[in-house]
């Protein structure tokens, strides 16, 4: 019994970590799918989203104690953070990437690294380098289900990431703009011939990816606080998740994120990898996948039918 409940404990921990990785990995993969470019500022966009969420939440909440209003104001803050961060993502693309679309592939990559520094240094300059606590909008006292210790925060992560991913799946498969997004990622010129405005689709992609990152940023900030460099490691891990799942593939990012969260958790718990070495698990998996299946788990080897 002990080992079974232990298994579910790690499963729960791994799924919550993986849910956040997946939310962030989606932004990398959607942008790559359309522009064939890695937005290395994505981790800093997530950080920005966490700050906006923190400020709006503290403002809305004021001095009110834990209760319904605090709970609601957290989600209002998340919504506002997603909108503002989405707009930031669109602005970054317009200013720093769009002018370089016809340049060599290295140029936008370098520009993205520049944007990453501007965002993290800008945040440090405006808001200071000390980390700030984003308070739980509820009493986060854990409860036990069949020997498995679960926190309300974990439940929230699972619900929020599930809703976001389902919404995205419905969007890309069933809506006109979602389908246009997939069309543009497959063939830009032909999409234009259909009357699809590629620039609008690219903006929309950045908006959605950045908004998802903002929600992910707020969810991790609850456990790990808000600070200017908070997006670095989680951004890199989510990037690994996107590559492992098959970069450019939305389902792949979801799978890669959840897989990475599970492997990190189980790696430490079962294989006995020292927690200090936890980060090497992700990068080890990345190397393994790149060696065995370079296109990623759900990626398709590129082969054109002529």
């Amino acid at each position, binding site marked *: 019994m002990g080992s079974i409940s232990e298994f579910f404990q790690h499963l729960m921990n791994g799924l919550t970590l993986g849910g956040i990785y997946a939310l962030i990995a989606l932004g990398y993969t959607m942008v790559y799918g359309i522009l064939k470019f890695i937005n290395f500022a994505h981790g800093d966009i997530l950080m920005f989203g966490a700050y906006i969420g923190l400020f709006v939440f503290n403002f809305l909440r004021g001095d009110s104690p834990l209760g319904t209003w605090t709970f609601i104001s957290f989600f209002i803050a998340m919504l506002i953070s997603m909108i503002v961060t989405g707009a930031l993502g669109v602005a970054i693309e317009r200013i720093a990437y769009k002018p370089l679309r016809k340049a060599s592939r290295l140029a936008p990559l370098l520009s993205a690294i520049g944007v990453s520094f501007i965002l993290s240094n800008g945040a440090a300059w405006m808001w200071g380098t000390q980390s700030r606590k984003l308070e739980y909008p509820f009493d986060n006292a854990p409860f036990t289900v069949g020997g498995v210790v679960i926190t309300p925060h974990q439940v929230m992560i699972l619900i929020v990431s599930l809703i976001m991913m389902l919404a995205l799946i419905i969007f890309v498969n069933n809506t006109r703009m979602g389908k*246009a997004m*997939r069309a543009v990622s497959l063939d830009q010129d032909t999409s234009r011939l259909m*009357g699809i405005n*590629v620039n609008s689709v690219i903006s929309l992609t950045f908006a959605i990816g950045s908004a998802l990152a903002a929600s992910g940023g707020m969810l991790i900030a609850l456990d790990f606080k808000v600070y200017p460099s908070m997006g670095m490691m989680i951004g890199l891990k989510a990037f690994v998740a996107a590559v492992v799942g098959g970069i450019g593939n939305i389902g792949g990012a979801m799978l890669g994120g959840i897989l990475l969260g599970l492997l990190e958790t189980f790696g430490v718990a079962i294989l006995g990898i020292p927690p200090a070495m936890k980060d090497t698990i992700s990068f080890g998996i990345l190397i393994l996948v790149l060696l065995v299946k370079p296109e990623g788990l759900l990626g398709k080897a590129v082969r054109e039918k002529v």
Partner: protein
Amino acid sequence: MKPLLNIEDISVNYGAIKALKNVSMSVNKGHIVSLIGANGAGKSTLLKAIVGLEPLIGGSITYGDITLATDNIRKSIRTENIAKLGISLVPEGRHVFTDMSVEENLDMGAFLVRDDALIKRKKEEMYDFFPILGERRRQKTRSLSGGEQQMMAIARALMSSPKLLLLDEPGLGLAPLIVQDIFEKIAYINKTENITVFLVEQNAKMALKASTEGYVMENGRIVLSGSSEKLLKSKEVQEAYLGA
């Protein structure tokens, strides 16, 4: 009568290479006009210039009263606005959205149509016209054969109810029977829907048989033009393209 599509003295460069040199031609409303020529003659470049995928360095292209392209890129119509004018291009090599189903490809063809009932009706029309697409409506188009992908690309182009259909090598790489089927369908569309067709083809015999007028292109220039019937019988065409 004023032609529907008028190409006047256009030139296009591919880097240092002159891909089109002072090309003039016209397509009358309701006709099927063909452009034949060898691989690399500049035929696809001409179609790309019409839809704004290749900039002109001289000349102009007009569609009715609208200027589609001039040597001033700012005064030329952008590719994403071409479909709105009633022009559909079936690109060379089909370019179906391989990771999307037949149905989703048709949805993309109707991207500018904002009437769901009309889209549904057009889809049913396409499934009637190309029954194989109806059977495979849920399949990803990467699993279709070359001929089926060509029908897919044509059906997708028809979803927007175009007035002018541009076809780039619809017979390329397909078995003769399938080519014949596709050309019959093109003739049928032209007749029943009154869609003007501009057909670019290497297969000179098929193209000239299907069209009313034809142009012959060599090295980026129009070298011959006239009624298709006459071109089919002309010595130059017979020697160069029909292997007679």
